[in-house]
């Protein structure tokens, strides 16, 4: 097992390397970070030249990548534009844990991400918990009551939710629960942010603000997962070993929750483990609509300003997370399914 993990991690290195290279190249043409610097004025030409030089954006792209990857403290840069490279670089490169500084706010990328990561995690994990609980409840119940009225209604609703684009669901819920509830004098849900700044970041505030984004994030997944769990359960319930368990005279709950669910859980666990890292990136759309100060919004803000270091940092973090979670999925799978043994 250790060997397997080691092997997978070693295999991930070239993968991540290639991804970073491709992304870095993609990002070079993604907009000029110093075109306006986020302002309403066009940056003046003298400042453009100077900033390009200072930020190292005048270097050939492969050199920029190299600096990003391995740092530039072994090279010298020409900062005053006299054609002589005299100032030693200070960056240590991704390989040494330095993701560089954001072009937008000059903060270290790790700090920029770290400020937002917990918010995203909070939202995502709550959503994931909702997803799991409801999907399991609905999925198992509708599998056991296959073709019942409940099953049919749930199937229709899940399809409806599954097909609805996130933003449409968000807009509709906002329209109903925030706009109209307020109009009708009912207690209405907040639509923006993580808490009222004046009220402070109290757990109650955060929980209250999480209602709509969590619902928006979860509904599609609940629908999808519950369909998945339903079919996995149905498949498991149709297996010979379930018949064997019945033939042994086991009570129904034991058959359902131990014999069937343990087998049905295998593909579900994999899917969850593979979906989790994607949640890390935050549902971009959800965070955008509800103004949730998470990774998704961070990504959008910095993409729109061509902030390569931050965007690269976010993407590489997610890539690493995906790799790790894929590995975790494999390990979990092996743990749950004794037939699988990695060597």
């Amino acid at each position, binding site marked *: 097992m250790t060997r397997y993990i080691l092997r997978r991690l070693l295999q991930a290195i070239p993968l991540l390397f290639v991804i970073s290279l491709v992304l870095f190249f993609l990002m070079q*043409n*993604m*907009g*000029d970070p110093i*075109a*306006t*610097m*986020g*302002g*309403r*004025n*066009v*940056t*003046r*030409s*003298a*400042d*453009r*030249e100077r*900033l*390009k030089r200072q930020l190292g954006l005048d270097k050939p792209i492969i050199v920029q990548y190299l600096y990003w990857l391995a740092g530039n403290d072994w090279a010298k840069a020409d*900062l005053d534009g006299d054609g002589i490279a005299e*100032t030693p670089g200070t960056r240590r490169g991704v390989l040494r844990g330095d993701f560089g500084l954001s072009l937008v*706010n*000059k*903060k270290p990328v790790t*700090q*920029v991400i770290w*400020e*937002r990561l*917990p918010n995203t*995690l*909070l939202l995502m*994990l709550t959503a*994931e*918990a909702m997803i*799991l*609980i409801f999907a399991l409840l609905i999925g198992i119940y509708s599998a056991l009551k296959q073709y019942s009225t409940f099953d049919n209604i749930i199937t229709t609703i899940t399809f409806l939710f599954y097909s609805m684009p996130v933003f449409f669901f968000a807009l509709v819920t906002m329209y109903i629960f925030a706009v109209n509830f307020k109009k009708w004098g009912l207690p209405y849900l907040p*639509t*923006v*942010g*993580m808490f*009222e*700044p*004046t*009220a*402070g*970041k*109290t757990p109650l505030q955060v929980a209250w603000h999480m209602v709509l984004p969590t619902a928006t994030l979860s509904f599609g997944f609940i629908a999808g997962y519950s369909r998945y769990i339903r079919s996995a359960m149905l498949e498991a319930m149709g297996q010979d070993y379930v018949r064997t368990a019945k033939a042994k005279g086991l009570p129904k709950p034991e058959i359902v*929750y*131990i014999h069937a*669910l343990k087998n049905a*859980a295998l593909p579900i666990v994999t899917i969850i483990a593979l979906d989790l890292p994607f949640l890390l990136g935050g549902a971009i759309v959800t965070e*955008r609509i509800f*103004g949730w100060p*998470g990774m998704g919004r*961070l990504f959008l*803000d910095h993409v*729109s300003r*061509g902030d390569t270091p931050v965007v690269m940092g976010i993407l590489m973090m997610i890539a690493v997370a995906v790799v790790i979670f894929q590995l975790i999925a494999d390990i979990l799978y092996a743990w749950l399914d004794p037939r699988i043994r990695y060597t």
Partner: protein
Amino acid sequence: MVIRQSTRLFLFVLVVVSMILAGCAQPATPAATQAPAATEAPAVTEAPSVTEAPAATEAPAERKVATFIWTQEFDTLNPYYTNMWFSSVTQQLYNCWAWDFDEANKPQPRLVTELPSVDNGGLSADGKVITMKLRDDIVWSDGTPITSEDFVFTYQMIMADRNTVASRNPYDLMEKVEGLDARTVVITFKEPYAPWVANLWRGLLPAHVLKPIFDQEGTIDTAEWNKAPTVGCGPFVFDQWESGSFTRFVANEKYWLGRPKLDEIFFRFVPDDASQIAALKAGDGDLGTFFAYSDLPELEAAGIKIINSFSGYNEGIYFNMHAEKGHPALKDVKVRQAIALAFDRQKLVDDLLLGRTKVAATDWDNTPYNDPSISPWPYDPEKAKALLDEAGWVDSNGDGVRDKDGVELVLKYGTTTREIRQDTQAVAQQQLAEVGIKLDLQSFDPDIFFASYAENGASANFSLDLIEYSDSPNFPDPDTSAWLCAEIPSDENPTGVNTSGLCDEELDALFKLQATQVDYNERVQTFNKITKMIFENVYWLGLWQDPDLFGVSSRLANVKISGVTPFFNIMEWDLAQ
């Protein structure tokens, strides 16, 4: 069962961990706030703790708190590191300019005793040397006096090679900045520099805070002060910044012009207009800005007062007249006039902008240098058609689009993705189609649109024929480099900003002349000539005057807004009784 329990447990643990993380992430900023608070202990409430609901709950009756809604988050709070409009308008809160501008955009001395002028000896006759006399009572919020050393240090920081400041304009035109004594600063320009009033000392860096950092690290790019300027010189002092959520400023007890009437100002970051409008209407915010015109009636209905603050921005279309790369038709003044006449900009302003602003006649509308005798081209499609016929652009093949010598009059019209601009495009397309000009519409993200020629930016590479955006000159000064021949982007000059590609020798000479004219009236004369040239040749077609819109709730009193330094009198703002 086994699975469910363990999965739940797993999730529970994850949620708990993430909550802890969410909690842990905060001390990053408070740590910075508390450090100076410990040394200096200014009257910054009590050490602001996170879990405690700040102030408002403690003494709701006493503390006066105002909430501003910003649709973009500050990038940095160092005045020299940002170009961002939202950051720069906020500077009067926590930082200070040598002089700021009142609601009539007249300079008001703030750090200096009076504005330098030839009369008071502050300005040399050749316009090269400026001598500033500092006030005696100016202090940083930690009590340290503000001296000439801070000015010299600020100049050094702007010019330091390892500091990636946003702009060196106009400091790179200076020969030197010296402190004659603690209260006297002398600035020497290499050449006479007329627009100095508008561009000098837009912010000050505290030498006593940043110098040690600069000496140690060689740069202040990463200084904590940029994110948490707990030492400031504005009426308010920075207190806390929660990334993605809000920034809080509290009253500066040591402010030399008197403690502000408000105790706290929150800047709340909401990511979009709708949320901003909702918050303002709900009374969750006292001030917002950057509205779409269509939201104004609703805001007013909710009792929000709208203030149009002209800051020099005039939306307009630059014509691509590049010698080689432009559309041949646009080199003909008649065609450009025809476009001006065919586009009913008044209706556009009336309908899309709800008549809240005016059609811009010149690039200098609403600056002191404006030529009031010029009024916008009228809407006259018939005359436009006539001019086009005259110019030889007729629809010879009956496809509804005029052509000449086999070239169709199809113009590529590009702008950014801002909604009002895209809407304008759609309207323009329809109106120009009526006179036989076809528009090919394109829109780009700002950082792509404004990317330099070297980056193949849409506005700079001459691939478009009509380029719409609004760019302010160095408001309130009219100086701009957008018309200089030397600024035409090319392989040799990949960062040029002359997006029209126009090189008019006469215009070029006039621009160079105005920059050295220290005398106000002479400069106005020169600008009137420039304005007339641009207007009559239709080098630029104004669409609308683009004021900054501020919405202020009735809770706030004494609110005045300046176009240059919007919050110049923020210390007088108060909650209405």
